[in-house]
């Protein structure tokens, strides 16, 4: 038998929002659970992207150990690389449970594409390209094909078409449920994890309708969260009735309303830190290394073009701190119509520690709420508007720990939460 854990991930759902939804009666199961659990807000990691956050959670380590600092990374030759599951440099807690003979069933966890051999069942979450590489073991593929399983909804379409967004979110939630149902009794497991990513999609596209009663799609948004709550209720009750030990519900980052996008590379270009080889670059790889002191990768990871790090770096080690100081001043003084834009400038040694420090960005920016940092290099202008309504935050993520153990302490961050879960085994 052994210790059993149920983990439900609600991608991007802020603590403040889920608290509201619980109190308003939209998520009654969450409300009940809150009364019998420790719960609250927690920080995640920097940058607060799903790929970094879920990687930190699944490995119970920080980026300087697992190696995922963002959706992308940059090689010494300035080539852009998209991080996949194969780029995670340490074992996951699922692997470590596997070494003890314990199995995990993991459904829709972002940053696990492509799958590889796994002690249990793994179905990848965002981003994924082919279904057959999104599932381990491959014997599950026929079932997934049968139910027309999709890892994600048609995102560009959902961004333009709210009706399609809500329809597809609902369909996708049902599909996740079908998969969970199929695996719950069929598989032996000590850890069952299901992640709902629709919440993050909905919040990017219709955040206003979530937090404002007058929002055009407010009712539809409430309906979706109600359905999510029903799914939680179903599995928590089933789990507890079967003697499960620990329930954890968490989000991988917070969310807030997006007011203005801030293009960091445009700023760096304007201030002379960055130059491109041609007039309309599409990728950061097109930078002109001989004339670039620093550049950014999504969303606001700053890299100094160091001689020792990059093939055509121009900054020597002795000038490293001076350059970072200059950049810090630039970011501290950045304002939009009198408002401060950058809440914090973190140097890498302040936030990361581990063997992969030399792969870390040299600085990471944390924004004031409302300002969403971007690393994209196309288009013009530092401050731009967007049709997107929500943006990630690194604090205000949600955790809930439901267990008989009364001595559980609130986790400070997502890594601590993961460590706590693993310690039970």
């Amino acid at each position: 038998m052994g210790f059993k854990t149920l983990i439900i991930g609600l991608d991007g759902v802020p603590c403040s929002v889920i608290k509201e939804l619980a109190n308003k009666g939209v998520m009654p199961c969450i409300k009940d659970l809150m009364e019998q659990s420790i719960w609250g807000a927690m920080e995640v990691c920097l940058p607060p992207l799903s790929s970094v956050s879920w990687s930190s959670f699944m490995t119970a380590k920080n980026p300087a150990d697992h190696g995922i600092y963002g959706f992308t990374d940059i090689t010494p030759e300035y080539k852009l690389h998209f991080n996949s599951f194969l780029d995670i440099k340490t074992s996951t807690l699922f692997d470590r449970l596997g070494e003890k003979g314990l199995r995990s069933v993991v459904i829709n966890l972002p940053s696990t594409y492509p799958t590889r051999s796994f002690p249990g069942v793994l179905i990848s979450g965002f981003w994924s390209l082919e279904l057959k590489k999104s599932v381990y073991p491959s014997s599950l593929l026929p079932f997934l094909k049968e139910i027309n399983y999709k890892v994600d909804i048609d995102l560009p379409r959902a961004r333009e078409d709210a009706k399609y967004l809500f329809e597809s979110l609902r369909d996708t939630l049902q599909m996740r449920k079908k998969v969970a149902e199929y695996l719950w009794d069929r598989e032996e497991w000590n850890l069952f994890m299901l992640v709902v990513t629709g919440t993050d999609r909905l919040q990017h596209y219709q955040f206003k309708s979530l937090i404002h009663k007058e929002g055009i799609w407010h009712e539809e948004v409430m309906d979706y969260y109600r359905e999510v709550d029903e799914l939680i209720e179903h599995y928590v009750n089933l789990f507890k009735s079967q003697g499960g030990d620990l329930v954890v519900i968490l989000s991988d980052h917070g969310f807030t309303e997006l007011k203005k996008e801030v293009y960091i590379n445009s700023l760096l270009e304007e201030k002379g830190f960055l130059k491109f080889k041609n007039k309309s670059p599409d990728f950061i790889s097109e930078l002109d290394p001989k004339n670039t002191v620093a550049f950014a990768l999504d969303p606001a990871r700053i890299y100094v073009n160091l001689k020792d790090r990059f093939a055509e770096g121009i900054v020597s080690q002795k000038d490293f701190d001076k350059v970072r100081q200059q950049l810090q001043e630039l970011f501290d003084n950045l304002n939009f119509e009198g408002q401060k834009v950058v809440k914090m400038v973190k140097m890498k040694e302040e936030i990361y520690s581990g063997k992969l420090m030399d792969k870390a960005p040299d600085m990471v920016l944390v924004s004031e709420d409302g300002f969403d940092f971007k690393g994209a290099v196309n288009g013009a202008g530092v401050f731009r508007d967007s049709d997107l309504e929500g943006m990630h935050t690194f604090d205000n993520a949600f955790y809930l720990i439901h267990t008989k153990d009364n001595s559980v302490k609130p986790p400070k961050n997502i890594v601590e939460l993961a460590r706590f879960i693993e310690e039970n085994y």
Partner: protein
Amino acid sequence: MKEKIREAHKVIAEAFEKHYKSILCWTGGKDSTLLLWIMIRFCEGEGLSLPEIVFIDDGDVFPEIWDFINSTSKKWNLKVTILKNQDILQHVQEIGDRIDVNKLSKENQNELRKIGYSEEVFTYEPESYAGNHLLKTVPLNQHIVQNGIEAVFTAIRRDEHPARREEVFFSNREEPPHIRIHPILNFTERDVWNTIFEYKIPFCSLYEKGYRSIGARYNTRPTDSKPAWLQDFDLIPERAGRGQNKEQIMDKLRALGYM
């Protein structure tokens, strides 16, 4: 086209005049097979012996490529040297398999250190930066050093890749020092197919299945269901089916505002 073949011959002739001890890298793909065909014609015409032909096995070769290499080397009566990183390949079975770096040979550990790889675990992925180095570059370099090879013929073309635009016919390399020779540098993708059909040069069956460019199995996909030579070269880039399908990933990330 005949011009370009003549040009390739000239490059090869220049290399032979210098009496380099050379090898030719054959991947089983259309470009290196074309190069091989051109080389055979030239050598037969001049009464010279062929350079050694090497094939690099990264552990994830399409069965169709193995079939093609075997049938074509029989047909053309060729001896092919297979190069591979035996130390790594004996430890792994599937893409994504992980090996503790300290279980690798001293040489492999050294090579990883050389490229600045500091992690404790190596993941078997032939087309990652470290994977490519250990599985392809290292066996090739070892062969060069162990056999005193001075020149390496490869089939790269300028139009394959923006990074290749500045390439030249003869290119000096360091570590180990040798010369890379690219006789078909000026052939375009269309030129390659025209030549193949004009002279009935054999090619791997994968191209008929829609593969435009062939790399490791785990990472190569057909770009279309139409045979390669019938696809729209302007619309679909040659290497669109290789690697991470960056365009697709970008689209998804952009749709969420991440890029």
